[in-house]
Every structure is written in C-alpha cells, then in structure tokens.
C-alpha cells in the first residue's frame, strides 16, 4: 500500500456509507436468519423479509466491490504491525467473499430446492440452478455454515477496530466514520 502524503485519511465516501448500511443489513439478516429457522409462527413473515433483503445486500456488495477497487484506501497507520496487517487483509477479503457468497447461495439453494424465488408480490428471480435435491441439501448446510462464519468474522472485526480505537487510540474508527474526520497533526499516511 502506498504511503505517500497524498494518501486519503478515510475510505471513499460511498464506501463509508455502504459499510454502515451493509453492516446494519447484514446483522439484521443474521438475526432474522437464525430466528426464522427456529420459529414456527414467524417463519413465513421473516423469510419474506429475508429473501429480498438478502438480494439487496448482494446488489450493495457488488457496488461496494467495484467502488473499493476503483478507489484508493487510506494507508494503515504505523500502529498496525505487519503481522496484524496480514490478518486485517485476510479478514476484509473473507468478509467480502462471505457477503457476496451468502446471498448467491441463498438464491442457488432455493433454485436447487425447486422453489419459486419470490421477492415481493409477483416479482420473482429466475432460478440459477436446475432442481437437484442433494445439491439443495448441501447448499442449505453451506448457507448456515457461512452465515455463522460471517457472524464470527464480524465479532472479530468489531473487537479489532475497538481495540485500536479505545486501547491503542490510533483513531482507527475514524477511517470508516461516515462524516469527514480531519486528523489534525496526524495523517494516516505519514510516518
């Protein structure tokens, strides 16, 4: 990553907005997901929210991926040692992979299970796989495992950010805050 003085101190505005919007949607999806599959009375209504919200996340995730690739990211501060940089990169990559894969698997598993993929009213998505019972069962399990993995990744990510912000106190959170934070006397890119 470039450490020139022109390096931005925050992520691109759109990325910051998408980060918090998607964080809220993803957490909602995780909670809706686990509660609907254990609820008899609310299953149907929760699933009716789960499907279109999940597909919205897929669309946001693709926009986010493109924005991320098109914009420079702020250089990491020196308070992040190289070993931690590795972990950070990996976890960022994993979270992108998960929030793109999860809705795709949801869509694919409903296709393999021979369900109509209802968004709302008469709006449906086309199936992306032919009906295949074994594949449905496998994808259904994968959907669960990856959703739990995303939840764990989120807990680790949040703990890491808060560790830096509250204990190392390197203003880590401000890199992602939606409003502009001017780092007086401290520029993330400067060492």
């Amino acid at each position, binding site marked *: 990553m470039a450490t020139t003085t022109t390096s931005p101190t925050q992520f691109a505005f759109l990325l910051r907005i998408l980060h918090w919007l998607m964080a809220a949607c993803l957490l909602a999806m995780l909670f809706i997901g686990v509660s609907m*599959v254990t609820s008899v009375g609310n*299953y*149907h209504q929760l*699933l009716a929210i789960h499907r279109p919200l999940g597909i919205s996340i897929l669309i946001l995730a693709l926009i986010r991926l493109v924005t991320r690739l098109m914009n420079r990211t702020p250089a990491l501060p020196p*308070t992040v040692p190289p070993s931690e940089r590795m972990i950070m990169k990996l976890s960022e990559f994993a979270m992108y992979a998960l929030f793109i894969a999860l809705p795709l698997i949801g869509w694919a598993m409903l296709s393999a299970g021979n369900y109509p993929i209802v968004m709302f009213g008469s709006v449906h998505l086309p199936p992306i796989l032919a009906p295949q*019972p074994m594949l*449905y069962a496998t994808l259904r399990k994968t959907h669960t495992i990856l959703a739990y993995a995303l939840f764990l990744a989120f807990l680790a990510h949040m703990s890491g950010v808060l560790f830096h912000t509250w204990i*190392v106190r390197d203003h880590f959170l401000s890199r992602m805050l939606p409003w502009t934070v001017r780092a007086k006397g401290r520029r993330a890119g400067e060492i």
Partner: protein
Amino acid sequence: MTESEANQGFGAPPPLPMGAVIARLAGIGLLVVVIAGLFLYVGGWLTPHALTPAALVDTFEHINGVQSGFRRNHAKGVCVTGYFESNGQGATLSRAQVFQQGRVPVVGRFALAGGQPFAADTSHDVRSLALLFKTADGEEWRTGMINIPVFPVNKPQDFHDFLVATSPDPKTGKVDGAAVGAFLSKHPETAAALKILGSGTPTSGFSDSSYYGLNAFRFVNAKGEDTPVRWWINPDLTAAPPSVETTDKNYLFDQVIAQIHSGPLRWHLIVIVGQPGDPTAEAASMWPADRQQIDVGTVTISTVESEDTSPTRDINFDPLVLPDGIRASDDPLLSTRSAAYSQSLTRRDGERKIPSAISTAEVQK
C-alpha cells in the same frame, strides 16, 4: 475523538495506564458477549424446549423412525400430472392468473398421512392430494389438501401434543388412552372436531374422496380488496362405500393407478367465501354451512408416475408458496407447516433414496 486526542501527534498517543487498558478490554469483551448472547438467544440455543420446526420434524421421526429419503409425514405416495381448467369465476375474488379463464398445467401427489412409507393401506388412513399449479406468468400455487373436513387442532403446540398423545407407544404398540383423554379434556375444539370426523365414513378410495385445504387464506383481487377464503375439491365420481381391504398392501394406490390408466379423474375446485367475523385461525372448525361456495374450475388428473422417477418427489408442497392474489391468513398453522415442510425437505433431500412402495412396476400394473 476529541480535539486533544487528535492533536497528540503521529501514530498512537502514550500508552494507557494498566487499569484503563483492562477496563476497556473488559468493555470490548462485554460487548462481544452481549451480541453473541443475543444471537444465541434469538437462534433458540438458550431455550432448548421451545417448539421449533426441527422439534416438530424430530417428533415425526421419533414416532416413525428416520425413513431415509421420504417425507416425514404423508410418506407413502404416488405422483400425478394433469391440468386445471379455470372457468374465470374466481377472478372477481383473486387477481392470480390461475383464476383467469384458461388451462393451467398441474403436478400433484396422492398420499396417505403418516410417516411410514411402507405401511399397508387402510380405509381409515387420512388421504391427501397435493397440487402445484404453474401459470404462464411464472407464478406457482401449491396446496396440500386432506380428505377430512376439519383439522383436529388450531395451534402449533397443540398439533405437537396431539401427535404425541395419539401415537402408539413404541414398546407396547398401543395408544395411551389416558393421554388422549387428558388432551381432549383440555381441548374441546379437538373433541368437537373428532366428533365431526367420527360421523363420516371414508369413501372407496382416492378417486371419489373430497379433499379440503382446511386452513383459511385471503384472496386479493385486482382492486386490492381482500376476502377470507377456504377451498376444497369435490370429485366427479359419486362416493362409493369403502372397498373390502385385501391382502394387497397397496390396494388404495393400485385402485387409483388403475383408474387413471383407464381415464382421467376430475374434481371441481370450490372456493368457500368467508364473511367478516368468520374465524380464519381455526382449522378445527367449519364456517357456517350457508357461506357462498364458488365453483372456480375443474382439476383433471390424467397421468400417474412412481416417486422413484418423478421430479414431483422432490417438491415441497409448502402451503405458503402462493401467487400474487392469494395470501396467508392469520392461521398460525400455515407458517408452522411452511417451516416444518422446509425442515422435512432439507432432511430428505440430503438422504439416500430408497425405492418407494409404489414402485415403477406397481404404477405400470
């Protein structure tokens, strides 16, 4: 971030005192524990005795054993195809394309209630017909109907408890009369439903049975008006008394297979129109007999195929797969069925398939 913090210069400010580090670490730990705890709570891990879709399906498995690859209920069945000819009479109540005048392809499945795929047919088994209507606009309507005019229970928990109370003890093979009695004394609606069911006699087979959707739904028309409805299908054949049970373990299936081979079977699809105030969350009771009944068209069943080869085996006749124009009512059994059928599908789809009792050879007889 405060101004003074921001002004601390490059990188990190001087380290925090140990006490503050511990307090802040504890804060992060607490946040993680609270969020994870909430997640576990919402996901039901902290309430292991709650009634979940998995618990319902476990109950079927407990009673019937795990029958690899088969539906956990209505396990013994045969697949059919045909079509629905709509006469257009339903269109004033529902905007779904299926009620526009015209012909819609249908796939379906005849089955006997219960989770035993190889049990011998008996005349008092509950018979079912599940149908899937697929319209040209890509919408689907799936419905599972049974040949009794009322359901024994109204609520999900009652379904579970009734199932447990009326199932034979695996050791003695007998139903515990005291348990049934105890259930009935707490559930007058079940006692009343059983009285209605006891007063009817079964017909000769699948082909001359009426099948009832039982749960209430809501039809929504083009103007957005919604009407509570229930539906049932009425056979063209006149009901004949039960045939004598033979040594043929599959006599009910063999009979309907032979009938389909000799000519298509027909039912009229009848929509019962509810009035404001008619209960929509009580599958155990009927609406008053004077409610308007609209004949919206005929269902014709013309071909029959074994589950071993039919793709219909892998279809979940989830009663809440509905086209725009039909909605769920407030009946809690609907969401429960949807959730339990999904659980049943997930389990059976992932299992090794064992040939059905109604084999390809049986269907060709």
